[in-house]
């Protein structure tokens, strides 16, 4: 059974304060890394999918992302196929 990897990236919406990202950004100069104006921290989910990653499978993953992995009140998400069957398919970008 071919297994494909689909990646769901979840990020706080731009207008939502991200104190965790800010804490990372503030630490950078202390560590000698200059020139990073901003850092935002998000979540990456790697879903190993059984079977072909066809339109139906992508639609299902989109639904998983929308109802569960992301809280669309505060977060945006994107879905893309990274490896395996269907990897050459156009990356699906979903903004909520």
């Amino acid at each position, binding site marked *: 059974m071919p297994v494909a990897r689909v990646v769901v990236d979840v990020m*706080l919406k731009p*207008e*939502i*304060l991200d*104190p*965790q990202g800010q*804490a990372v950004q503030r630490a950078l100069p202390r560590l000698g890394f200059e020139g990073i104006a901003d850092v935002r921290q998000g979540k990456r989910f790697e879903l190993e999918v059984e079977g072909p990653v066809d339109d139906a499978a992508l639609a299902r993953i989109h639904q998983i992302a929308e109802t*569960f*992995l992301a*809280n669309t*009140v*505060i977060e945006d998400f994107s879905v893309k196929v990274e490896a395996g069957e269907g990897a050459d398919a156009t990356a699906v970008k979903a903004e909520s």
Partner: protein
Amino acid sequence: MTARVGVITFPGTLDDRDTQRAVRAAGLEAVPLWHRDKDLKQVDAVILPGGFSYGDYLRAGAISRFSPVMDSVIDQAKAGMPVLGICNGFQVLTETHLLPGAMLRNNHLHFICRDQKLRVENAETAWTRSYERGQEINIPLKNIDGRYVADERVLDELEAEGRVVFRYQELNPNGSLRDIAGICNAAGNVVGLMPHPEHAVEPLIGTGRTDGLGFFTSILKRLVSA
């Protein structure tokens, strides 16, 4: 026959016993409910207590929201049953969308535990009838994901409809927008707040005051008058 108030235990919940005790202190019968049970055992009201739940791995309350018991809670809440979410329970209620907005990590990133002064902004809800509008109460607060956020349109709607039920006084402990500590749904039967009234129902414990007892006596008033 006294009113029955269900208190749901999720894996990891740690304030369920305190909540049951507070329910009994108000003269009500506390009914323990397990998160996998769909049956609400004919309770008259439900409390989602505080304390971390297993849903916090994804977002606070996100996995608890899909526990079987929540389907019944959502149905009953929409039918008018009083539901109170305290702390993690509030987070679960936002994840179900019974209450609008979302809860995020505190703006200072620290866990905070303190006695917190609140102003009661709405004394008409199912859970605040024992208070008066404008009354200040002091109850414990303990959380790391207590920052309430919603978009400007939702915040304006909450303000216009009197659905901001509690506001932080003197100090905003977590960066909640507009100092919001608790809100309710449009019907006023579903209320969520971050501080813990169940820890302030006996003078020997918590703040040394009983300012939290009003939540539990409010529900008695509501059920008797219903």
